[in-house]
């Protein structure tokens, strides 16, 4: 087995036993990137020197007998909307295409402190707005299971990196499904933590009340390790939860006996791919056979989530993205006077989807529409939260599809924003409610593409989510877990 084919947990063990060095591990992933990234285009920026430097430091510390975090020396890829000091952070936008943050996001500081080599910054939909990476100002990332298809988004680059073995772990961000949807499309574990569980400091805002950073990983064990590394209270983030971080890796094998799991009735009824619905049902049956108590749960407002989300997120975005005005950083258009500079800078610097959302948000917040749109959406958000609270009185976990279909083709939906928005329909309500939610592989579609299932828990229920996901990891038999990639085509397919 090649080094880059290992999970983070296995790499961690190999490193701890000094069977391999962090340099070797890092180099192996850098080589893999060299082979595959020209084809798959997961990375916007590569940082090999920085990665190797970190790896060398970790190796030295290990030789010196220093106590190290299990993830020390395990490389990672980071979505390009998470600030890295001195390393270009672009949000895959023209407007930030040459932006060098003078500070690290809190999660990046944590990873640096642990000694995780940073392989590079991954591609995404511009400002995390999208579900395919087709909204990247630079290029579209390719799904390693089928390079003609999208990897999902917005954290598509991160998903591609992990699925293709170019990174054992990656960070994404999830505003309305941007970790879970690409995880589903790429056959990975993708976790959206409870809102406030992971610091947002240094995560370039899309919709502040929804944004959360989350791990993308091959296994629940890996995701648990990474979550443990980034979770926790941060005094720089006022919306950070002042709660202790449990050891997510401990008791992962507790099993699912007696756990009450509810299948969302509304999801299954929708126009989902029947194979997806069947796969989810199979998993539910499997859980039942191993002692889970299952049933159907009703979340009657599921259909309204999309409407509320597409008012709240763009409204916040319209405000969050006001700062890109050509004064302090970023792209600046030539102009004769101030207002023209603002309008041209933003008109030329933002892509179509970002402009669309700014327009919706500005409209929804403007005088005369606030009550009917924004305020109403926030009220619906309350009702959706109550829906969940009620559901969690009867169930410990809620289960449904992670995406209505497997990955779609590049270009298939890029001209139809509404169809694109609908691909996040399974992921939006959890985000509105602020509850943790995980996307886990649910087997392969007849097309050979992975399908995903989503499990949600009450606030701070990550441990239970990971235990359930870990159980399912252990039940996989005879299903290919990784895409079969032919290498050596020179990156042009």
């Amino acid at each position, binding site marked *: 087995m090649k080094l880059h084919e290992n999970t983070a947990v296995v790499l961690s063990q190999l490193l701890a036993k000094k069977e391999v060095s962090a340099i070797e591990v890092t180099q192996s992933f850098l080589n893999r990137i060299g082979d595959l990234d020209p084809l798959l285009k997961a990375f916007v920026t590569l940082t090999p020197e920085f990665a190797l430097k970190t790896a060398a430091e970790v190796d030295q510390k290990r030789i010196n007998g220093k106590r190290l975090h299990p993830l020390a020396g395990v490389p990672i890829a980071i979505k390009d909307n998470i600030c890295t000091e001195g390393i270009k952070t672009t949000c895959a936008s023209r407007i930030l295409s040459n932006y060098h943050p003078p500070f690290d996001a809190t999660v990046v500081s944590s990873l640096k402190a642990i000694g995780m080599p940073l392989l590079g910054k991954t591609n995404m939909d511009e400002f995390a707005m999208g579900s395919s990476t087709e909204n990247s100002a630079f290029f579209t990332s390719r799904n390693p299971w089928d390079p003609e298809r999208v990897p999902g988004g917005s954290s598509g680059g991160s998903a591609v990196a992990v699925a293709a073995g170019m990174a054992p772990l990656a960070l994404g961000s999830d505003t309305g499904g941007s970790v879970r949807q690409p995880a589903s499309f790429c056959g990975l574990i993708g976790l959206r933590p409870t809102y406030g569980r992971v610091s947002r400091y240094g995560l370039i805002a899309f919709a502040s009340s929804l944004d959360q950073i989350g791990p993308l990983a091959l296994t629940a064990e890996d995701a648990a390790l990474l979550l443990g590394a980034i979770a926790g209270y941060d005094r720089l983030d006022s919306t950070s939860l002042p709660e202790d971080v449990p050891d997510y890796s401990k008791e992962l094998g507790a099993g699912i006996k007696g756990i009450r799991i509810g299948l969302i009735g509304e999801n299954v009824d929708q126009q989902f791919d029947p194979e997806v619905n069947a796969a989810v049902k199979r998993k539910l049956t499997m859980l039942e056979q191993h002692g889970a108590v299952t049933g159907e749960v009703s979340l009657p407002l599921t259909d309204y989530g999309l409407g509320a989300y597409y008012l709240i997120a763009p409204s916040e975005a319209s405000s969050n993205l006001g700062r890109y005005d050509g004064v302090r950083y970023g792209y600046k258009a030539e102009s004769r006077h101030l207002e023209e500079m603002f309008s041209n800078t933003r008109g*030329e610097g933002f892509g179509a989807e970002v402009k*669309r959302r700014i327009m919706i948000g500005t409209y929804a917040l403007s005088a005369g529409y606030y009550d009917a749109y924004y305020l109403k959406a926030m009220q619906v958000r*309350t009702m959706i939260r109550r829906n969940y609270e009620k559901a969690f009185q009867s169930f410990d976990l809620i289960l449904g599809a992670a995406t209505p279909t497997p990955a779609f083709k590049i270009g298939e939906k890029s001209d139809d924003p509404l169809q694109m928005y609908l691909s996040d329909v399974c992921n939006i309500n959890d985000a509105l409610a602020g509850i943790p939610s995980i996307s886990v592989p649910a087997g392969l579609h007849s097309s050979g593409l992975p399908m995903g299932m989503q499990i949600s828990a009450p606030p701070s229920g990550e441990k239970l989510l990971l235990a359930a996901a870990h159980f399912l990891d252990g039940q996989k038999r005879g299903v290919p877990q990784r895409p079969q990639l032919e290498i050596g085509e020179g990156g042009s397919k």
Partner: protein
Amino acid sequence: MSEDFLKEVEHVSRLARLNLKPDEKEKVAGQLQSILGIAKKIQELDTTGVEPTSHVINLPAILREDVVRSSLPVDQVLLNAPKRNKNYFQVPRITAVE
């Protein structure tokens, strides 16, 4: 599409300081209308008396102590400045009149 809505789109794009080219404006207006279509679905719900959720965290704000911490070095502050003039950021003339 109605003239009124196009006018509104123009107004909003001005509010957002977002220059849209003429063809772009038509397209955005159309898309905006269909997106507002799904957004309008929530109007079906009776939300009388429902508190709006602006934060999902039911906690009060945290306060930090009034302690001065070091600022960024000026060169870091101006590192990404598109137009720097000495230690200032420079912007073009504020008024449109020539």
